[in-house]
């Protein structure tokens, strides 16, 4: 692993059993590197596998096949006990600031949990550390003895952030951390996360269904569809030189808070719903909904590679990638073999 890679995912598959004989292939062959100090955005719609992938990264899930490497060590096969020291370095912030905090425990003891689990500080020293953390994330340290119910949604997410940062992790996986919050509060938390990243040299994997949030926070973005990465690029390239038709459709569907843009742009409205992950379409998984699908799209799964004149930084899994300025809103699929 090269020096600037903190975490690497190699051909990870994650399957879940269903009631029948089939399996849900939530993550279906993903390879990816997370660089030190960067924020890698992971976007996609419900069921695309972004959260499952993130949980595999933190080894909250066992991978079905493939491997996850953190700082030159394979962590995906570690036992719970062996994983424990690595847990200090990889922390997760969850979406739901209501569901992820035990309502019957005081905030001070919730934030102090990581210290207790790892036997780090105790008594007055632990309290001091917890209060420092509370201050760091913008909570009043005097509220140490309050319960989660006494805090608003935004403050609860600050509690989640404080708990995640307690042990000074290297990698923080943020799973929809602001999705449950109102916009004015959402902006507070995003700013907090970026301040903390600078202060502690953190690396983030930032998962969200909200492209405008991901665009704002990420250095690079991976777009997922049905268990696979369809496009991976530096943020400005993903938005400026979109190659994959699904990425373009996703960008185009995002409502923009600007009436002039909203009135003038041509929206791409995708037909149908995302197919089932138990039985994904053959060939390119997006071909059933792709406005420019062709007969050869059904042949084999397109590899995630640099296309057209892109550098190796920008990878796309599409055999008919978009050129800059190409109009997708008028494209018509043609799946008949010529």
């Amino acid at each position: 692993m090269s020096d600037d890679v903190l975490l690497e995912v190699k051909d990870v598959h994650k399957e879940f059993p269903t009631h029948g004989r089939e399996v849900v292939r939530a993550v279906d062959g993903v390879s990816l590197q997370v660089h030190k100090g960067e924020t890698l955005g992971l976007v996609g719609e419900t069921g695309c596998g972004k959260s499952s992938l993130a949980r595999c990264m933190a080894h909250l899930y066992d991978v079905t096949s493939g491997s996850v490497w953190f700082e030159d060590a394979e962590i995906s096969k570690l036992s719970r006990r062996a994983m424990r020291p690595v847990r200090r370095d990889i922390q997760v912030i969850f979406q739901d600031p209501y569901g992820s905090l035990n309502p019957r425990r005081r905030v001070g003891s919730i934030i102090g949990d990581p210290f207790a689990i790892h036997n780090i500080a105790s008594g007055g020293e632990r309290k001091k550390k917890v209060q420092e953390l509370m201050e760091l994330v913008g909570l009043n340290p005097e509220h140490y003895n309050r319960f989660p119910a006494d805090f608003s949604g935004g403050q609860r997410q600050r509690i989640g952030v404080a708990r995640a940062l307690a042990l000074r992790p290297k990698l923080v996986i943020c799973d929809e951390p602001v999705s449950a919050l109102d916009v004015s509060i959402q902006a507070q938390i995003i700013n907090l996360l970026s301040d903390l990243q600078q202060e502690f040299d953190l690396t983030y994997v930032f998962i969200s269904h909200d492209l405008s949030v991901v665009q704002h926070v990420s250095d690079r973005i991976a777009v997922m569809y049905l268990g696979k990465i369809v496009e991976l690029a530096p943020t400005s390239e993903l938005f400026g030189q979109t190659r994959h038709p699904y990425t373009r459709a996703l960008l185009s569907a995002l409502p923009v808070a600007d009436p002039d843009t909203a009135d003038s742009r041509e929206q791409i409205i995708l037909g149908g719903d995302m197919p089932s992950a138990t039985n994904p379409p053959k060939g390119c998984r997006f071909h059933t909904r792709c406005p420019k699908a062709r007969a050869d799209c059904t042949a084999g799964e397109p590899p995630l590679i640099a296309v057209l004149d892109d550098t190796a930084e920008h990878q796309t899994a599409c055999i008919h990638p978009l050129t800059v300025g190409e109009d997708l809103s008028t494209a018509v699929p043609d799946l008949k073999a010529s």
Partner: protein
Amino acid sequence: MTLLEVRDLRVSFDTPDGIVRAVRGLSFDVEAGQTLAVVGESGSGKSVSTQTITGLTRGATVSGTAYFDGTDLITADEATLRRLRGAKIGMIFQDPLSSLHPHYRIGWQIVEMIRAHDRVISKQAARKRAADLLSLVGIPRAAERIDDYPHQFSGGMRQRVMIAMAMALDPALLIADEPTTALDVTVQAQVLNVMRRLQEQFGTAIILITHDLGVVAEMADEVVVMYAGAVMERAPRRDIFYRNHHPYTQGLLASLPARSGDRLTPIAGSPPSLISLPKGCPFATRCPHVFDKCAETPPLTDVARDPRHQSACWLPHENSEAVAS
């Protein structure tokens, strides 16, 4: 033509913690065939106000008037409201799964709804109408899928079923309360598209309740911005985005990631408790422009002498450019 005229609506709930003043003097008009967006964050009173108008807030203390087609919905009896709901006023909510009965087939639920209001229509005719409605909202193979159960439909398709039900009796007004909040963006785009198309076709007026300013920019004709149970600003769509006056409207827009540079500019603090609201302007505690006058509640007054654009703020109203972001 004004279809719905709401004046000085006040709604409060008596709770063990005290009286929650959820809506405090709300007035607005909905014009026939137009979309009025009501935007605000959690607890702003945007949902409670329309639920009250349609008689869905039992146990609340309500005052004010809401005239719809000559009837005051606030004082109307339950039978009148029941006749209007569905037939004249269609409603869709955020979560389509909890609005559909899981035990009954989709088609049956639509047929029931049609027959509840139209006593003479035959079962066959109602069923035919249900199938037509499903294809109208873009359900593929509607004639076959009419006998599916709700769990066999995806979230986006369920929301379309809700729209089909809401539109079944060609209502004059559709109240859509966060209709796309639970949906993915590509599905949201489909559903909003269906709503726009139906409005064009049938001239339905829409009250669209949302927290998403992007959806407002895409859909609204007029916009009402609510905060802590009161209107902060009301204006035609473009004025809200380009010539806004109220610091809360400006704060909301500035919080959006897409409109900021390197660092976001959130609104400081959090909304006040609706049980113990501070005196004066409810936004004063978070407002960057607060001054001594704000201890008094500012009335909604015209901005730049335009009666269609009003703001409840003491900052000068003559030249909105002076304070606009």
